[in-house]
């Protein structure tokens, strides 16, 4: 049993070891930069009493806010938030499909110009702050939840388009090949093979995005684009912790409910 191993794989390991160290060095530099660059504030002298009043407020929520028939209570605003997220995500899912095919890399194209440009556009949409979008839409349609719907539907394209395009890139091309080899044309391939194959993933990603939209629809409230966000910000700014508590409770319940519902849906549809 002779046990010499050829030199070549050994030298390869050496390079790998160096490479590893290099990465480690890069990571170390990045973290050093991150830690030393920030000025940390420690716990405040007031932290204890502030925390105490926050906790106190959170455990004694302002129940009177739950429902009072004025249309500006927790229940109505949460429903409004849901409606904004639902419509916004739905519209976004529709618009995202062409974007996704634009940005999906396919083997054939030249230098990935098409998919590359699609990806940049999607990134730009994702990076465009929701708040600025909301302002733009408020300018167009006035303050209120309609502007919120539009802001959510445009903003979500960034993420949905990206997820969709990745799904397209990774999808099993088998069914498409089968229709091609049966003599189908482009539209037939798309409708009979591509769409049915990709649909479950599209739906699943849309539900996922809906969950996120529900959670972040509160941001829109900051600029008056509707939903539970406005009262939340006001309550925080005036340190009305019992009010914050009940709103938080409402959001938590809503999101948990949505999560479990969409989990069920996902199982049912896929």
């Amino acid at each position, binding site marked *: 049993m002779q046990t010499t191993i050829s030199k070549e794989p050994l030298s390869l390991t050496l390079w790998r070891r160096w490479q590893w160290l290099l990465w480690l060095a890069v990571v170390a530099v990045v973290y050093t930069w991150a830690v030393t660059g920030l000025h940390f504030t420690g716990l405040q002298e007031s932290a204890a009493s502030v925390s105490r009043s926050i906790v106190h407020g959170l455990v004694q929520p302002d129940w009177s806010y739950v429902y009072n028939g004025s249309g500006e209570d927790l229940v109505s605003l949460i429903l409004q938030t849901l409606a904004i997220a639902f419509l916004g995500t739905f519209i976004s899912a529709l618009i995202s499909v062409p974007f996704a095919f634009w940005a999906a890399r396919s083997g054939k194209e030249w230098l990935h110009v098409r998919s590359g440009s699609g990806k940049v556009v999607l990134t730009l949409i994702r990076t465009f702050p929701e708040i600025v979008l909301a302002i733009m839409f408020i300018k167009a349609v006035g303050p209120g939840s309609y502007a919120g719907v539009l802001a959510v539907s445009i903003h979500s394209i960034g993420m949905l388009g990206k997820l969709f395009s990745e799904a397209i890139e990774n999808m099993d091309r*088998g069914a498409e090949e089968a229709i091609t080899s049966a*003599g*189908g044309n482009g539209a*037939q391939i798309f409708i009979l093979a591509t769409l049915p194959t990709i649909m479950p993933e599209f739906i699943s990603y849309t539900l996922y995005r809906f969950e996120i939209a529900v959670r972040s629809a509160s941001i829109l409230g900051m600029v008056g684009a509707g939903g539970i966000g406005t009262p939340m910000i006001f309550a925080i700014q005036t340190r009305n912790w019992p009010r914050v508590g009940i709103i938080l409770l409402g959001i938590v319940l809503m999101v948990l409910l949505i999560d479990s519902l969409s989990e069920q849906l996902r199982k049912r549809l896929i």
Partner: protein
Amino acid sequence: MEATPIISFKNVNKIYDNGTVGLKDINFDIPRGEFLVVVGLSGAGKSTLLRTINRMHEITSGEIRIENEPISQYKGRSLRLLRRKIGMIFQNFNLVKRSSVAKNVLAGRVSYYPTWKSILSLFSAADKQKAVQSLQRVSLAEKLYARADELSGGQQQRVAIARTLMQDPKIILADEPIASLDPLTTKTVMDILKRLNQEDGITVIVNLHSVALARAYADRIVGLRAGEVVYDEPIGQVTEADLNRVYQTV
């Protein structure tokens, strides 16, 4: 019958974009109605060979003729008509898993319909009838309304064959149609292919790993190694030693 071969390869070469040689100077004819088995190690170029026949892959040089027409000139509609007469069966079935068996089988018929009709699934009653018959030929009519992902591997492969039958193909290409099937199902699938070959006179070309199966079903065996034909004999003259040549590692 000997008159003109249904498929003929002339100096065919295929080099992939990354430089891999897929096929190297392939020259042979396939007469109408033959049951040809292609054997070879993994990576030998079997799939490549099959896929050049219906232009799923383009060749780099040389010429492939089907029914005496060079296929490289086809485009668009005429290419689709070419593909229509060549059925293809895949190792992993390539069904739309979430659609019903009926829908999958009818999909084989799309090239006979204008786009809008096929997209709206407006298939004629006659074709629906034909779908049932195709499924009956593979003994699977009772699964007509089942979803494709509810079927076992062997059943899925039979659905794929039924889909191919919908095309009324003159040629069937089968790329390792029985890998990952158990011996019993393997036999069923190979028997169906043999029957199509004998009863309907369809020319069948099958890629196989198993030499035993090749000997049991083929009229003729072609061996590939590294993209080259290293062996080409009618079944009567096949010997163990010859086949081992195919399986030599390079």
